[in-house]
């Protein structure tokens, strides 16, 4: 039997890294999205507070 186990170990390692790495990129993008949504929500709340604090006659 030929001694070529190293090739199969490399192939298995490479595919595992590839699939896990891709799953990780989805997770990272998802986190960035959540941060962006939270920022937008904070900005919206701040704008709302400003509007209620200022009397309605001002532009």
């Amino acid at each position, binding site marked *: *039997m*030929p*001694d*070529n*186990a190293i*090739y*199969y170990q*490399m*192939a*298995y390692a*490479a*595919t*595992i890294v*590839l*699939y896990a790495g*891709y*799953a990780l990129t*989805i997770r990272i*993008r*998802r986190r960035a*999205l*959540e941060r*962006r*949504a939270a920022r*937008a*929500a904070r*900005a*919206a*709340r701040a*704008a*709302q507070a400003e509007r209620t604090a200022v009397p309605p006659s001002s532009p």
Partner: protein
Amino acid sequence: MPETSAAPRRPFDWFALLAVAVTAAAYVRAIWFTPPEMLQGYAQKILYVHAPSAWVAFLAFGLTALAGAFWLFLRDPRLDRFAESSAEVGVVFTTAVLVSGPLWAKPIWGTWWTWDARLTLTLFLWFVYLGYLVLRGVIPERDARARLSAVLGILGALLVPFIHLSVYLFRTMHPMPVVANPDGFQMPPVMVKTFFFAFFAFTLLYAALVRARYAFATDRDALEATLDATPDGGR
């Protein structure tokens, strides 16, 4: 006040956990519970990740083309999100095919690369769908992006038989270096079981990855829609 429910914390993804567990089981079975093949040695085990990845890659691109074709008639943004997700996951699986293929060919055929019909087809599909992702990346308007990428996805599916046919003819008309043909060997039942289990596992992994990527696309589109609706752009 605009609703800030864009990008909610999604509940724990049990399906993804299942897919990861089954895929891990497929790897474990292939590594420790499947004997190596007599003539090819341990390198034969690459087949258990290579062939299922190739199946998933073709499935992914086929579904991308199909979703694009249906989008052109139904104009449902969910179809476009699915096409986007499936194409991206398909490129990942194609990359796995293109990495594991040469790693098998080197010890068995004695060369990293041959212009075999299936290998060449996979390489060109990889190029087509990388181009597909690049095209999606440079069109900011959602509708135009869906429309143009749908056309590209459909033409890509039409291209497959032509590339396969011309490369096949190229090979039969040009004598290639003689290589052992290991495709014909008979697998004992234990290997066959591992082989089909891996197909099942990788298909599940595809579904889980597309599902996660699709959920991301949905939340991203929802957030962008809320930001567009906010007068100050949500900054």
